[in-house]
């Protein structure tokens, strides 16, 4: 039986996870570009750039009370012992959103993240040292997956030797936990237990030049910020800072493995890097976020009710031919690229400058060390999808 994706899409269908764009294109060009499904807790899914951006901008109607793409309705989710801890500012709405975001933005400004470049470069080189003699590697698991977790742990001031543990927890929230609430809650609790310990440690032993200490000492309107806020920021930085950038690095390497002409262009024309990074972010935007409808409304003819979930598929928006010429092609010097890989509006990814830095350094170091490489077997590449899309196993030879 052929299902109609405009009324029954399944973001966890294996073929959708591997390549969602045929279904997304079908929805976008149908008479019903805002699709709906009853699967996975039910959701709406706009597929046109203009609609995704409009929803992102209308934060009063499309709230951030929940941002995961699956799950029970707001208020009914089991949050365990840390019910008061969310993931500010991504889970915040105005007016609190303003200070939730403003306190962390200085850590992520371009001039602030620049100090992580050399360490990231050294890390990438060490990872490649570990497999370059073999002539083969898993560019997703041995390389991409290893980078952002260590950068974000460094930024948070926690030990990088727990990286595999952190990665497991994040996957528990953003991958396996999306279809199994018990798994998600366990992973979330592990993350929050860990950062509670870190926060307690910083209260006893404040550190110089330390993100958690700085946040704990922050004041808003003359009062120290609540601990739940700092706890939630730590939660967000780990959960949002790992899978996402790893997926972007992994998908970009998967692309470059199959496009020798792009490897050559980047080698011969290094001035292409800035636009090339933006183009890879556009074409392989990893993240889909959710919004919760605040009150009954109609959007593009669709009757949306209070409490319903809307998926903001940035990958779908970034492939809309109404906005991008030849959207399925990677054009490294694309002139006009208003991509929304990092979202739009007040929730623009706070870590975008760090993500870009990691993506650029990871690709540059790889191409310096391994200028020529190819997929061992395109059919054996595995992908994760749903909230964050990217390759999870990607064997390459060189």
């Amino acid at each position: 039986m052929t299902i109609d994706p405009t009324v029954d899409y399944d973001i966890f269908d294996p073929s959708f996870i591997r390549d969602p764009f045929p279904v997304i294109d079908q929805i976008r060009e149908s008479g019903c570009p805002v699709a709906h499904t009853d699967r996975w807790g039910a959701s709406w899914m706009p597929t046109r750039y203009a609609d995704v951006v409009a929803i992102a901008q209308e934060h009063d109607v499309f709230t951030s009370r929940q941002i995961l793409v699956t799950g029970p309705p707001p208020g009914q989710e089991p949050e365990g012992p840390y019910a008061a801890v969310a993931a500010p500012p991504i889970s915040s709405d105005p007016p609190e959103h303003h200070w939730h975001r403003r306190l962390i933005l200085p850590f992520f400004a371009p001039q602030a993240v620049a100090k992580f470049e050399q360490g990231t470069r050294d890390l990438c080189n060490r990872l490649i040292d570990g497999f370059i003699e073999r002539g083969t590697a898993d560019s997703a698991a041995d390389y991409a997956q290893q980078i952002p977790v260590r950068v974000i742990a460094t930024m948070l001031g926690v030990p990088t030797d727990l990286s595999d543990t952190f990665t497991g927890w994040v996957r528990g929230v953003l991958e396996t936990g999306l279809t199994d609430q018990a798994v998600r809650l366990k992973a979330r609790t592990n993350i929050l237990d860990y950062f509670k310990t870190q926060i307690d440690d910083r209260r006893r032993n404040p550190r110089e030049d330390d993100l958690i200490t700085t946040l704990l000492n922050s004041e808003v309107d003359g009062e120290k910020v609540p601990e739940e806020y700092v706890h939630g920021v730590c939660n967000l930085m780990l959960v949002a800072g790992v899978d996402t950038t790893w997926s972007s690095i992994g998908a970009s390497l998967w692309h470059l493995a199959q496009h020798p002409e792009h490897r050559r262009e980047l080698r011969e024309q290094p001035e292409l890097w800035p636009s090339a990074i933006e183009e890879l972010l556009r074409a392989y935007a990893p993240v889909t976020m959710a919004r919760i409808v605040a009150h009954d409304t109609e959007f593009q003819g669709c009757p949306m009710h209070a409490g319903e979930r809307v998926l903001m598929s940035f990958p779908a928006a970034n492939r809309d031919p109404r906005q991008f010429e030849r959207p399925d092609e990677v054009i490294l010097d694309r002139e006009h690229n208003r991509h929304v890989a990092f979202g739009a509006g007040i929730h623009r990814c706070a870590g975008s400058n760090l993500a870009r830095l990691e993506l650029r350094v990871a690709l540059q170091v790889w191409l310096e060390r391994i200028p020529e490489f190819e997929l061992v077997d395109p059919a054996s590449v595995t992908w994760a999808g749903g909230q964050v899309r990217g390759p999870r196993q990607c064997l390459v030879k060189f």
Partner: protein
Amino acid sequence: MRVRVDDDSCHGHQSCAIACPEVFGADEYGNAVVLITGDIPADLEAKVRRAEGNCPEHAIHIDD
């Protein structure tokens, strides 16, 4: 050519600074600042137009 950024629309994507770092930078929060508030040198005009065409928030306004 002159250029300005609408601070209410800018949400700090930094797409402008990536396309044209000679003219656009960031404040301490990562939001865009215009580094050349007077006339834009002719040899940078194309890059400024590119910056405008890369802003997802349509926050860059060019006065020719």
